[in-house]
C-alpha cells in the first residue's frame, strides 16, 4: 500500500530531519509511528501527503507521489491533524464533514449519505448540528476524525490522536480506531495507546528508522525505548 525508498527529509535551511528511510506498509495494517518529540513523526506523515519537502521515492496505492498524482493520493490518505482547531473550519460539524467528499466529486446526496453513515458508526449523531467553536476538545477530536472518515479514505493517518484528551475521550478514539477498516498509521508517544491499537511499530530516533517490528516486541524492549527517550508502556511495567 505504502512504500518508501531512500526517503530523506530536510526543511529548507534546516538540518536533516529524516535520513534514508526505507519501509513498506501492507494494505490493512495498523502501524504505530513512535519517537520522542521532534523525532520526525509529523514530518514523515506530511511527506506522504506532499506537504513536506523530501527526496527519494514514495509510492502510495500503486502510484508514485508526484505533482500530478497528488490530488489522487490526498484522496487516498485521510489525515487527522494533531490540532483539531486547525482542521475544522466550517461553522458546523455537519458542514465540515460535507466539505471533503463534495470537493472530491461526490454529489450532495452521496456526501450526505456518507456523513450519516460515519456519524452512525461512531455514535456521533448528536454532534451533527453543533457549532465547531462550541464543542469540547474531546468532541472536536472525534468530529475531526469523523470529518476525515466521511471521505472514505483507504488509508487513515493520525498525528498524535490522543494528545490533550481525557481518559474517556482517549478511550473513545481507541474504540473508533478498532471500528474502522483499512490501513492505519498512528503517530504517537502514548505507547499504551500504540500497544493497544497497533500490530506493528516503527521507531524513529535521531532521524533514522531505528526499529521496525511487532508492537509487543518493540514496546517491551525497555533498553531500546530508553535509548530514544521513550519509556515502557505502563501496562507492561505493571506486570
Amino acid at each position: 500500500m505504502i512504500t518508501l525508498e531512500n526517503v530523506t527529509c530536510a526543511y529548507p535551511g534546516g538540518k536533516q530531519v529524516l535520513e534514508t528511510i526505507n519501509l513498506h506498509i501492507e494494505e490493512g495494517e495498523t502501524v504505530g509511528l513512535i519517537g520522542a518529540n521532534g523525532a520526525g513523526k509529523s514530518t514523515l506523515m506530511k511527506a506522504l501527503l506532499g506537504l513536506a519537502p523530501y527526496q527519494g521515492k514514495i509510492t502510495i496505492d500503486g502510484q508514485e507521489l508526484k505533482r500530478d498524482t497528488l490530488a489522487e493520493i490526498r484522496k487516498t490518505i485521510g489525515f487527522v491533524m494533531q490540532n483539531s482547531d486547525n482542521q475544522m473550519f466550517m461553522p458546523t460539524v455537519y458542514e465540515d464533514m460535507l466539505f471533503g467528499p463534495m470537493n472530491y466529486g461526490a454529489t450532495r446526496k452521496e456526501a450526505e449519505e456518507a456523513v450519516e453513515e460515519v456519524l452512525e458508526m461512531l455514535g456521533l449523531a448528536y454532534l451533527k448540528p453543533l457549532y465547531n467553536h462550541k464543542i469540547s476538545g474531546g468532541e472536536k477530536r472525534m468530529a475531526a476524525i469523523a470529518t476525515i472518515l466521511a471521505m472514505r479514505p483507504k488509508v487513515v493517518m493520525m498525528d498524535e490522536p490522543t494528545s490533550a484528551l481525557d481518559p474517556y475521550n482517549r478511550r473513545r478514539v481507541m474504540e473508533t480506531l478498532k471500528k474502522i477498516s483499512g490501513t492505519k498509521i498512528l503517530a504517537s508517544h502514548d505507547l499504551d495507546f500504540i500497544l493497544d491499537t497497533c500490530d506493528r511499530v516503527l521507531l524513529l530516533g535521531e532521524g533514522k528508522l531505528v526499529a521496525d517490528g511487532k508492537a509487543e516486541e518493540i514496546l517491551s524492549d525497555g533498553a531500546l525505548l530508553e535509548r530514544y527517550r521513550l519509556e515502557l508502556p505502563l501496562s507492561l511495567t505493571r506486570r
Partner: protein
Amino acid sequence: MDAIHEMASGSSPIHRLSPGAKLLLTVSFIMIVLSFPKYQLTGLFFFVLFPVIGYQVAGIPVSTCFRKLWVVLPLVCAVGIFNPFFDRKILAVIAGVKISGGVISMLSLMLKGIFCLMASFLLVATTTIEEICAALRKIHCPKMLTALLLLTFRYVHVLLEEVSLMTDAYHLRAPHQKGIHHSAWGSFLGQLILRTADRGSMLYESMILRGFHGEFLYAENKKYSRLSWLVAGFVLLLMIGARLVDLTALLGSLL
C-alpha cells in the same frame, strides 16, 4: 467572530434569500449611496431605512453591527473631518445657525460610510462566506479572487482568536496593567504574526488535503427562497426610486 459564523447560519427570511440576490442588493445599495452628490443630505437620510429594515427582518439588533465594528467606525467618520475647514460656503441657515457646505459634505460622507458598513455587515451576518464565494463564482468571478477572499476571511478569524488568547496570557502575568505595555508591543506583534501564519497555513493544508480546489459546490446547500430575485428586484427598484426622488424632502414639503 465565531458569533458571526453562528449569525450567518440563522434562518430568517433574509438568511433564506439567495446569496446572489443579497450580494446584488448590497453592491447596488453601496453604489447608489456613494453616488449621492456631496451636498444632498436629505435624500441620503432615507437610505438608512434599507439596512435598518434588513436588520429587523433578519432578527439582528442594529447595535451588533456597531459593537462588532467599533474599531473601524472612527476611520469611517474621520474621512470628511477636514471638509468644514476647507469648504466654508454657507448653504443653509437653520434656526439662526449658519451651516457651511463643508459641514454638510462631512455629514454626508460620514453617513455614506456608516450606511455602507451597515449594509456590508448585514450581508456577512446573514450569509456564510462560502455562500458569498459560491455566488461570486456563479457570476464567473475568478477563482483566484474568491479563494483570496475566503482565505482572508479565515485569516482574520484566526487573527482575532490569537489576539484574544495572547492578550489573556499577557494579562494573567501582568495583572495590574491596562492594555499592553509598549515595551512588549514588538514581541507581541512578532509572535502574533508567527502564530497566525502557522495556524493559517495549517488551515490551508486542511483545506487542500480535503480536496479544496477553488470551487464552492459544498456551499450551495440551503433551499433558498424562490422569491429571492423578485424581492431583490423590488427592493432594487425602491432604491433607484429613492435615489431619483428626494423622498425626505418630499415628505417635508407635504407636512
